[in-house]
């Protein structure tokens, strides 16, 4: 029972990592907390739903079609809104994206109404097929989502580490002024980063639609989960965010085991614990290295 909850929590954590990845990437690279993140994910879920429905395609093909659309939306978002708001201080992007979230939510409501939708009917058997391992039933779809999360975060990590574009993105994040003096076009890099972030949003929105249902106002909870996973994992690295997603899901499952309504509460509690710990302790406390070196020191003393 407990092992089953743990396994299901890790699979759910894969989805949280997926949705948190774009939020964390944007925060890391552009220093913007995009409060429209969840709403944009829902927007892409609707786009995938529309294309899948209209062209009778598999959702996995439709998501490939909306990737470039979301990339363009990301570029426009950067050029039209974020670029101007970042000039007005740190608070302004938060307010603007908050407003944008409301606009997107209500436009979606106006267009698609209050009905909930899901992409799972277009999947056929895949939506309930499972692997049976040691008396555990593991859904194929959550496994696909988890693998997608690992592949996406791994891919972004490799791009950031080993490509020229990745070096330019990291340099711009570290010190935009000096990046300009080295010849990096910070504006272009910000546009590309926003486009990449929106592509991850497209994938996570699709994953949401495949796993369950969504409606026009589903964006808020998605933003909340993404934000909690990002804070738990620490904004320093994308793999941290992946761990953050899994820790959040485990905390929610433990909450649900304790009390039927404890699912969200468990997650919030874990988020608050990490938030205060991050404020009051040195950041080293969260790295594996810190604990390993402590362990070694204790050994030396003995």
């Amino acid at each position, binding site marked *: 029972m407990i092992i089953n909850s743990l396994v299901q929590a890790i699979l759910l954590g894969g989805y949280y990592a997926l949705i948190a990845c774009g939020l964390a990437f944007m925060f890391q690279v552009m220093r913007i907390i995009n409060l429209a993140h969840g709403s944009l994910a829902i927007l892409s879920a609707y786009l995938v739903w529309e294309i899948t429905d209209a062209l009778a395609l598999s959702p996995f093909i439709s998501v490939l079609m909306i990737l470039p659309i979301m990339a363009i939306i990301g570029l426009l978002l950067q050029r039209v809104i974020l670029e101007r708001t970042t000039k007005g201080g740190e608070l302004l992007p938060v307010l603007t994206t908050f407003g944008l979230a409301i606009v997107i939510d209500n436009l979606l409501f106006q267009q698609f109404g209050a009905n909930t939708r899901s992409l799972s009917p277009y999947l056929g058997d895949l939506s309930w097929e499972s692997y049976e391992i040691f008396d555990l039933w593991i859904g194929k779809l959550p496994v696909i989502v988890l693998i997608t999360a690992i592949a996406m975060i791994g891919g972004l990590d490799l791009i950031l580490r080993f490509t020229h574009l990745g070096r330019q993105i990291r340099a711009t994040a570290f*010190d935009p*002024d000096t990046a*300009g003096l080295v010849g990096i076009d910070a504006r272009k890099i910000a546009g590309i980063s926003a486009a990449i972030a929106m592509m991850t949003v497209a994938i996570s929105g699709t994953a949401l639609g495949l796993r369950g249902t969504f409606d026009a106002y589903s964006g808020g909870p998605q933003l909340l989960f993404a934000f909690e996973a990002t804070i738990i994992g620490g904004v320093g690295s994308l793999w941290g965010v992946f761990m953050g997603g899994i820790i959040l899901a485990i905390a929610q499952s433990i909450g649900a085991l304790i009390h039927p309504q404890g699912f969200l509460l468990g997650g919030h509690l874990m988020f608050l614990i990490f938030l205060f710990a991050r404020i009051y302790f040195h950041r080293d406390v969260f790295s594996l290295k810190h604990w390993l070196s402590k362990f070694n020191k204790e050994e030396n003393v003995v």
Partner: protein
Amino acid sequence: MLSVRNLDVRYGQFRAVQDVSMEIAQGDIVSLIGANGAGKSTLLRAIAGALPVYSGSVSFKQQDVTQTPSSTRVKQGLSLVPEGRRLFADMTVEENLLLGTTVKRSGDWNIDRIFETFPNLVKRRHSKTGHLSGGEQQATAIGRALMSNPDLLILDEVSLGLSPLVVDQVYASINSLKGAGTTILLVEQDLGRAISFSQRAICMLEGKVVLDKPTCDTNKEEITQAYFGLHQSNNQEAS
């Protein structure tokens, strides 16, 4: 090559650079001298495009670049080694150097030649620049600027915080650029070194240029007077 006309740079109400004009020709080696707060770094950062200009103009290779972003100026061949080195500390030496190739200007400089010029960097190639010594960091910063194959290299206080021995090494490596025909504008606090290294000295005081002469026509005393503002008051007394 570089022409600055009536340049004014302000921080709010404060005029850090006031009505500065200067011409630098191809192949010139020019030293910019002045006390702390005289506006040297502000002037250089404005020339490189890292600070907005209040009034006046900067043109580079007969093109007006006053409103051009810094990255475009690097592409045109103007590179600044900023004061305090400003390396990307969480990246390795090699990554910092590779960032210099962003603008894809062709020329003699490539990563191997940087390591030949600064042999002290070879064993540090894969170390994070935050962990390097001051001299190694400075070499990386100069190397990063050189990787863009600049026509005009601007060096802001490259000897700041370095031991005299390391300063000698850094200057020895910059010296090799002279032969290659690179135009150099540098800030140097050591007057003797500035006079011996460059062909021309420009002295700034309180945001204004108070002296601009070939180094062969001037001497340490005259520059020192300009440096402390004695130059002007003497003139006023004389008149």
